[in-house]
């Protein structure tokens, strides 16, 4: 994709049209860019894959890329393979605010953690006709 359409699309999603050096792509399809002509916090950014469209979320960035993106390290995982352990779980997006994708298929709804103090009366099921 390119040209005017891509520029408009980028502007719509990121509010800016900017081009940087493509540093790498993770397995989820997130693309990471760097343009050091910007000041330090703004010089690295991520572009989420097309299928995500407006449902992007910071938790879609895996931890190894997160380190590079937030200047915890200057070596992207493509340059320096991050340390991993066999017990490290596969990265998952935090879906607790996404309806229908949570465990149990429900969006997380905060609930009262206190016990019910007063129990209500329930009317008898069958009403005897008089």
């Amino acid at each position, binding site marked *: 994709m390119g040209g005017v359409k891509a520029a408009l699309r980028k502007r719509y999603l990121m509010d800016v049209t900017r081009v940087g050096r493509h540093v790498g792509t993770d397995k989820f399809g997130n693309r990471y860019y760097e343009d050091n002509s910007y000041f330090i916090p703004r010089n690295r950014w991520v572009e989420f894959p097309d299928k995500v469209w407006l449902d992007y979320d910071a938790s879609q960035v895996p931890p190894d890329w997160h380190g590079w993106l937030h200047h915890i390290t200057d070596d992207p995982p493509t340059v320096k393979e991050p340390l991993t352990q066999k017990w490290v779980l596969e990265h998952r997006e935090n879906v607790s605010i996404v309806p229908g994708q949570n465990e149990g298929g429900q969006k997380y709804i905060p609930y*009262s*953690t*206190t*016990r019910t*103090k007063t129990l209500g009366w329930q009317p008898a099921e069958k009403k005897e006709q008089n």
Partner: protein
Amino acid sequence: MLRTSILRAIQAGKCVRMASSGGKDLPATRYHEAKRVEVDEILEKTPEKTPVKVSADETMDISGVPLEHIETRTARIFKPAKEATQTPWGNTLAWRIELDNRQRWENPLMGWSSTGDPLSNISMNMKFASKEDAVAFCEKNRWDYDIEEPNARQIKPKNYGQNYSWNKRSRIGTK
């Protein structure tokens, strides 16, 4: 000339002026030569403050207390009853004010109780030596009030010997 003007500037800006003993206008360079000058000698005299007198019934006009906590409240002036669970009477000595109980609700996170009433605790904190003090306080705050006279403590003479009186009706059988 320049030096004097600088000195003036220092005089105006600082509370303590350093004056030298040798050169008239030179600033003092040694501590023991310094002379302490009070603020009032430099600053103009402040006009004396006249206290604004506010009568008791005007206090609430300027206090900023929301209207709902002035006009709608009813206070109950009372002396607490003796705790039935304990012997001493100490808590019955002072007069208290209790305002009408506003709704409390349960905070859904911890189950603690929340209230929108900033005055809900005054009965715990305020004690009055006399009923009149409590009434004056209520009037100042423009609360309606009801006075509850305490039940007087009755001390009826009792005697250890009554345990052994023969006409005691509970004295039956072996007791």
